[in-house]
């Protein structure tokens, strides 16, 4: 409760400073709108459905891309974790790929998929996959030996050991991987939507820029941040916390 009050005070403080700068009239109004103008744009955008529509379009791309990266990520991760030689060979490359900002893939996406949906999803997938590979590998490699020993003395065969012990034991890492991949995919989506057609959030942002409508641009930045925060905090963190508690890893 106290925290909430502090946060509200913080937001009011930011708005106050913003308003102050606006009043100083350093930049023309269309380049530096007031908080009230942005608020109105947000309101209108939701009323006439543009924002909801954009969010739906963006989420569709995000979900498709996210699921593909989770599937790829888990598969690659399992392959890497299953074999020491593969692990040592490709490990550094995965880390290198993970460090590449998604926007770097745009030229490739454009050349290979031109301006279609596929180009954007391609970028989203590249944004989310590598992290998932790394987390899957870590999860599999870090299964507590005592779990596997216990299972072995209870008579599991190799397949049972994998499905009934290793995979469930790796779930905390898998969930954390998914949470991070979601965040990476979300960022990648915003980069990906700078190109291509359609009317996702990113494209609305570019449109605002082209129209010189700073109010719209700021509104969308606020939306992107809010959605990113809300999904992370209210969906993924919640799941992660539940899992960590059950797995006895929350202290």
């Amino acid at each position, binding site marked *: 409760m106290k925290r909430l009050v502090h946060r509200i005070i913080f937001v009011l403080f930011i708005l106050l400073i913003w308003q102050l700068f606006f009043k100083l009239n350093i930049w023309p109004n269309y380049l530096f709108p007031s908080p009230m103008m942005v608020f109105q744009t947000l309101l209108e955008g939701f009323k006439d459905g543009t924002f909801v529509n954009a969010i739906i379009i963006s989420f569709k791309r995000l979900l498709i891309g996210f699921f593909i990266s989770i599937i790829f990520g888990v598969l690659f991760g399992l392959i890497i974790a299953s074999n020491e030689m593969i692990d040592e060979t490709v490990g550094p490359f995965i880390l290198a790929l993970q460090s590449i900002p998604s926007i770097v893939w745009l030229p490739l996406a454009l050349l290979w998929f031109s301006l279609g949906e596929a180009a954007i999803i391609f970028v989203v997938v590249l944004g989310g996959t590598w992290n998932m590979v790394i987390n899957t590998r870590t999860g599999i490699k870090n299964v507590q030996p005592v779990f596997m020993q216990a299972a*072995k*003395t*209870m008579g599991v065969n190799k397949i049972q050991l994998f499905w009934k012990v290793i995979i469930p034991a790796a779930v905390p890492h898998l969930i954390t991987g998914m949470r991070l991949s979601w965040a990476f995919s979300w960022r990648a989506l915003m980069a990906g939507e700078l190109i291509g057609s359609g009317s996702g959030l990113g494209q609305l942002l570019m449109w605002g820029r082209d129209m010189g409508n700073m109010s719209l641009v700021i509104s969308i930045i606020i939306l992107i941040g809010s959605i990113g925060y809300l999904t992370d905090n209210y969906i993924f963190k919640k799941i992660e916390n539940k899992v960590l508690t059950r797995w006895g890893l929350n202290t």
Partner: protein
Amino acid sequence: MAFLEIKNVNKYFPMENGSQLNVLNNINFKIEKHEFVSLIGPSGCGKSTLLNILAGLIHADSGELLLNDKAITKPGNDRVMVFQESALFPWLSVIENVMFGLKIQQIDKKTAYTKALKQLKAVHLAEFKDSYPHQLSGGMKQRVAIARALVINPAVLLMDEPFGALDDQTRLLLHKELINLWLKTKKTIVFVTHNIREAIKLSDRIIVFANNPGRIIEKINIDLPQPRNKDNKKLVELENRILNLLQSEMNFEGGYRYEEIGA
């Protein structure tokens, strides 16, 4: 021929400096069916290693291990192990943990459930069947672990310091429970411990190990019926005898400190 035979077992582990550490040196003993045998000795003398070899989790470098005249080569559910730290699966509820060993034998769910519940009752934890391991105390976890092992009905129950991490009161309680279970099921149990009193109270036979290289220095029979009174004169004598045996091994690093052996 004995039920479980350990013949001339040797085990070496490579050390950092490239040399080989002789963890088990020419280990020989036999265990009869229904016998409760404790392995006791200083830290690092190879007790866990030997138990892991019996479980088939690691291999001896030489020697023979026979259970019912058949060589032990790999893990199997005729030799189930209970570990010091809780090895319960945190993603399964208590009853699902106990059902684990049955379900992997493709035993149908209903039968498995009935058997598991019965076993949980035997360790007085039936009302916690739907709890998850993180909601249990250390002692409860070990009781579930024991139930999970016994429900499989193994020929031998291997226990590696199963009560080592518990407080004294809980440990005493679990001693009682284990003895009762053992009297009822007449399982063959190989029990590793640091605790002399624990070994004396529970076992038919104590095998005393020494360090560097890990080897047997004494085998002691205890012909007293269960349950035992800890103030029995014979037991007190035995305790002193084992303490002396172990203390004579104290003059090297990693040797026994009193608090490690005193109950």
